């Protein structure tokens, strides 16, 4: 009899201990979860980085055949004033004459160089090539150079905002 009682008591103790253990475990999981989340959040770009909002640029300053490079969100943006001898691509041409693309190779992120004599961008890293429209024509790049979101205000292009011209380009 005595023995049984003691066992029962033991069982009770065990379940009480289990209960404490589980609550503590759950509580600790919540704590660790939040700690990890906070750590994760610290690595996100700072507000000042996210706010590197928009850049404005006057397209008419680029002479025919000329390439200008401007910086948007730390990335180079190529602005090429196309000439007749370069290939046509109506749905990649901005304001009738310009190729506007993010100058970051779609392969591994190097910056392709404009080779004026061949009228192509050549990527120094693994030999990728893009034509004057920014379309990949050779090597490892999987897709054409990206077109940054833009809006047109007359001759001025605003990078970082999606205008109707941009939306039309992207959709078709």
């Amino acid at each position, binding site marked *: 009899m005595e023995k049984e009682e003691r066992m029962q008591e033991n069982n009770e103790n065990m379940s009480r201990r289990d209960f404490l253990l589980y609550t503590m475990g759950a509580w600790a999981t919540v704590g660790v979860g939040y700690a990890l989340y906070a750590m*994760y959040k610290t*690595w*996100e*770009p*700072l507000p000042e*980085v996210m706010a*590197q909002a928009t850049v404005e640029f006057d397209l008419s300053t680029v002479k025919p055949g000329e390439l200008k*490079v401007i*910086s948007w*969100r*730390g*990335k*180079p943006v190529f602005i090429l004033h196309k000439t007749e001898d370069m290939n046509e691509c109506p749905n990649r041409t901005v304001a009738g004459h310009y190729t506007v693309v993010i*100058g970051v190779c779609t*392969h*591994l*992120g*190097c*910056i*392709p*160089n404009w080779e004026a004599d061949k009228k192509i961008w050549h*990527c*120094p*890293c*693994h*030999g990728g090539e893009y034509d004057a429209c920014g379309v990949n024509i050779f090597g*490892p790049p*999987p897709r054409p150079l990206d077109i940054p979101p833009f809006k047109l205000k007359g001759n001025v292009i605003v990078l970082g905002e999606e205008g109707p011209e941009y939306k039309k380009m992207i959709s078709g």
Partner: protein
Amino acid sequence: MRFIDWLDERLAIRQLIKVMMTEYYVPKNINFLWSFGVLIVLMLVILIISGVFLLMYYKPDANLAFDSVNKTIMMDVAYGWIFRHVHAVGASIMFLLLYVHMARGIYYGSFKPPRELVWLTGYVLFVLMSATAFTGYLLPWGQMSYWAAQTITTLFEKIPFIGPDLVIWIRGHFIVEDPTLTRFFALHVVFLPLLLIIVTAVHLYAVRIVGSNNEDGEPIPKEEKKKKGIPFWPVFMSKEFFVMAVFLTFFFFLVFFHYEFAMDPINFIPADKLQTPPHIYPEWYFLAYYEVLRGFFFSQNLGLIAFVLSMFIAMFLPWLDRSPIVSGKHRPLFQIAFWIFVFDFVFLTILGKLPPTGLYAWLGLIGSIIFFAFFFSLPIISRIERKQLENGGKK
């Protein structure tokens, strides 16, 4: 009372010394390849000491980092250049030591039961060391630093769905920028070295529990340890000191007379976010994997999968090679595969630095396939050997 007794009463220090040193028996039938483990520990110590001294003048800031290394440490700090050259050459030689150490393990079957955990902890050390070298390489903020970080972080962009956001998260910016530098700095000087030290301790402890493997892969039961082995301390280490002396002579010869192999000239140009250097490549110790990435030139995704696989596949050796014959010394078939693999690794390393065009592209593909073929041949070789053993005696 002697000091050692005083310590012993409080820390059981004698027991610790016994387990780790005087009663850890190293088999007699080993060769000089077994001295590399201790050389790696030595190299880690050298890296940590030189790193701490670099840290005293290094400035982790995108505007200041380049000058703090190339002007302050290299030109102004007395003997600063020695510490930098020791650190850079040290990182490079560390990988040479690691590769020899690992190849030794593969050849003599040191990853097989009961040493799986020795192999796994060792592999974790290799991965940690690679991460340490990669993050450290960004710190001088030169052109090569910058573009290595830019391209390697871009790899994460290719992960389906989360990729594009993940890269921005890793960099803390749309491109590699100041936040990337400061977080790589924190990882490089605190977090990763700390993990390296902890995992090294576990690795060394694990070796002492299961005992060293030997040239013949012969298991040595407890009773025979004394007869078939020598105590790690003082006997093994007395020989090791000689190897260390020879190694350090070689190491400092490189540091003083041939450090340029670890100091890429392109990295003496400050990082320029708008201009990729005309030819970029990783440090020599990553070239083989880099070549696997480029090897599958017709498909970017295949290349990426192969790249990741090539870096981790060796971790699974204990489950790929289950041959009952432990040591490669007694496995003629395995020896052929092993040496092809070693030459292939060297071959890939050489190709990695050449332009990936024309014939080189195809050679890269072939080399990459051979790299994997080695690992996938192991289960087959194991099977053949098991059969041979079962039909035993026939030989």
